[in-house]
């Protein structure tokens, strides 16, 4: 019975995995459909910082400085000569270095990308280390009081409803 269940369940998990992979491939690879001009403007302005705000993107901000960049991006998109990256580069040149919202991956900015990975590795390593310690040192000394508590509890287990 048990073995039969095992085989059956193994097969059904395999089927599930295949279906999931298939669906992900179908959905993930297909075309996302045409972007409107406005969609392109939104995509680009999400990567540009509003020069006069605190950490807001041009997409989010309603400040006049953001408005100015937004209409420049709109002009560039309407002209449809430059690619998205080229438009971002152009705006960056025209409006100065601060307008890029995504930190670069050069210089000191490398840290902002690298440190989260370092943190994850450290956290996982610390957890793995703790697991080893927990499994080798099983518990500590049991005090008499603790032992009595457990014994009492085990004795009283019968009057559970």
């Amino acid at each position, binding site marked *: 019975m048990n073995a039969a269940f095992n085989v059956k369940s193994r097969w059904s998990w395999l089927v599930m995995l295949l279906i999931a992979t298939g669906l992900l491939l179908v959905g993930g690879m297909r075309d996302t459909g045409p972007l409107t001009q406005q969609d392109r403007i939104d995509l680009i302005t999400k990567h540009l910082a509003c020069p006069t705000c605190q950490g807001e993107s041009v997409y989010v901000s309603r400040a006049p400085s953001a408005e100015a960049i937004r209409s420049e991006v709109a002009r560039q998109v309407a002209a449809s000569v430059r690619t998205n990256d080229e438009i971002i580069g152009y705006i960056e040149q025209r409006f100065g270095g601060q307008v890029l919202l995504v930190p670069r991956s050069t210089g000191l900015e490398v840290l902002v990308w690298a440190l*989260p990975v370092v943190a994850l590795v450290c956290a996982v390593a610390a957890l793995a280390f703790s697991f080893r310690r927990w499994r080798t040192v099983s518990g500590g000394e049991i005090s008499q009081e603790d032992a009595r508590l457990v014994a009492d509890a085990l004795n009283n287990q019968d009057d559970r409803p």
Partner: protein
Amino acid sequence: MFADSGVAGTVGRALLLVGIVGSLFGAIAAISSARTREAAVTKLISRFAILNAVAAVGAFASMEYAMITRDFSLAYVQKVGSTATPALYNFAAVWSALEGSLLMWVLILAGYTVAVSFWLRKKMDDVLTNWAMGVMFIVSLFFFLLSFGPANPFVVGAAGVVDGPGPNPLLQNHLLVMFHPPMLYLGYVGMTVPFAFAIAALVTGRVGEGWLLATRRWTLFAWGFLTIGIILGGWWSYEVLGWSGVWAWDPVENASLLPWITATAYIHSVLVQERRGMLRVWNLSLLVSTFSLTILGTFLTRSGVLNSVHAFSESAIGPWLLSFFAIIVVVSVGLIGWRGDRLHSPGSIDSALSREGAFLANNVLFAVFAFVVLLGTVFPLVVEALQSRTIVVGEPFFDQLVIPIGIAMLTLMAIAPVLPWRKASGELLSQRLFWPAWCGIGALALSVFVGATGFAPLLAFGLGGFATGSALRQVVLATRRQGWRGLVGRANGGMIVHVGVIMISVALAASNSFTHSQELSLVVGKPATFSGHTFELIDVVQITTDRDISVKALVSVDGGKPYAPAITKFTKIGMNVGTPSVRTGFGSDIYLTLEPPVRQDSNEARIKVFIKPLILWLWIGSGLMAVGTVLAAFPGKRRKPTDPTSALIDSHEVSR
């Protein structure tokens, strides 16, 4: 009006002084009661807590009185008050700037202090209670001093002022300003209670599980309000700011999210300590982090340091908050180090594939999440300090890092709820995860069928379905066994919170990935179409009040009733504020904004249309989170208090 001049100010200042004295003596009474054990001193603790609360309520009421009577003798009323502000927004104007917000902090903290003292009135002779009250009073003292000193809202202003600009237009534009800040502060400030108990446990050396059990409802209460506060902030952003989003990863938002992340980690990992006696240092650290992050967040957002590293020393409260943050960290780390020997956890772990293993994985994810948010928020400061140049870290950075974390969290939410404590076998998992996994496949198939694209959103939808299956499995099994009691208690209420979180994740994934927008130039009588909907401009109207001039474009969507996106010019401040108008639906929202410039008599208007899928589920999920939190706070099926968790596992338990 001038007959009242100064009364509110004088009374307010006096009451803040009373609060300072009350907290100081309260702290002295609590700590000396802990040391001397004298009943007469112990009795004083609650009285000082009441005195504090009276002083704080009185000071806040004085400020409200000054605002309502438009007492322009006060500098704060000159800054945010105006004769033209409607009554409700005028009431909320009290917390629309720094000084008033800190006064609300004082009020809520005093409220918590008196509530804790009332709740513990029969345990006031306990040393742990005394120390916890002592810590509460010391934190109160700090905030009373801050409010009396560098951020005093009762400072007398320039003479002869008879009117002011009123609060920031964005803060007198939607009713949510009445609720978002108080909710957020109830959460933020509420984290002081578990922190106070954590410090008290360390000081008294009673670092076992007793204090945890005592404070878990307080933590849940504060966490619930913090959650609601953050979500109301997102809702406000959606309804008011006009960029159609709920979250922009700006520093102020991040400051509220950080303590929420560590508190959420704590709510999970504390279960491991309760059941297995492990993670004592870690849980203490999470509570200390949560509280200190509320202070750090306030420092970051209120001191001006984010404008420039050097601005914080110019702001009056910057050095205060930074010093307080440093003291908290040093004292807490020192205490944890000092109690190192007692904090050695007696428990041990059997297998990574177990409930406790899942909670540990959860904590790794939450820790990395908090680190990413903190790093992204303070990194511009680091670059400015080291290289004297400014950079901005914004939404694309956070999205890139947080999306994988979110997917990992959904995966964990799918598997963890079915895991037993101690150890799970592959067979058991395969059995328990079978139907939840099919839910996931179903959700994935449905998303592909309705046209969703992209790996990340599809993974989110599929895992969302899987995790919903796991959560509902727990609730269904529990209600089948215990009837309505299967809905209450931490495990069951927690699963309802999970379903809410999943709805929010799915709504965010959908709205971030599949929003389409288009700008339409509308002329009266000539409908335009976008994304299968027709938009027809019916009229452009102008409404003038004392406060503002508002131009509205009446736009009928699909021939239905007109929506009215507007641009409002606040005449006194000279600022234009757009107000979106939203047609809400279960499938998608149609979000309309009016784009400048607008002329009332032109019969034309430029509107921007956003089609945003599943946004409504964000609010439904939030409501479910709130309901789940309340259910989780009720005691569930009582385990016998001495139920031996280290005893052999019941064989029925395993095969279930």
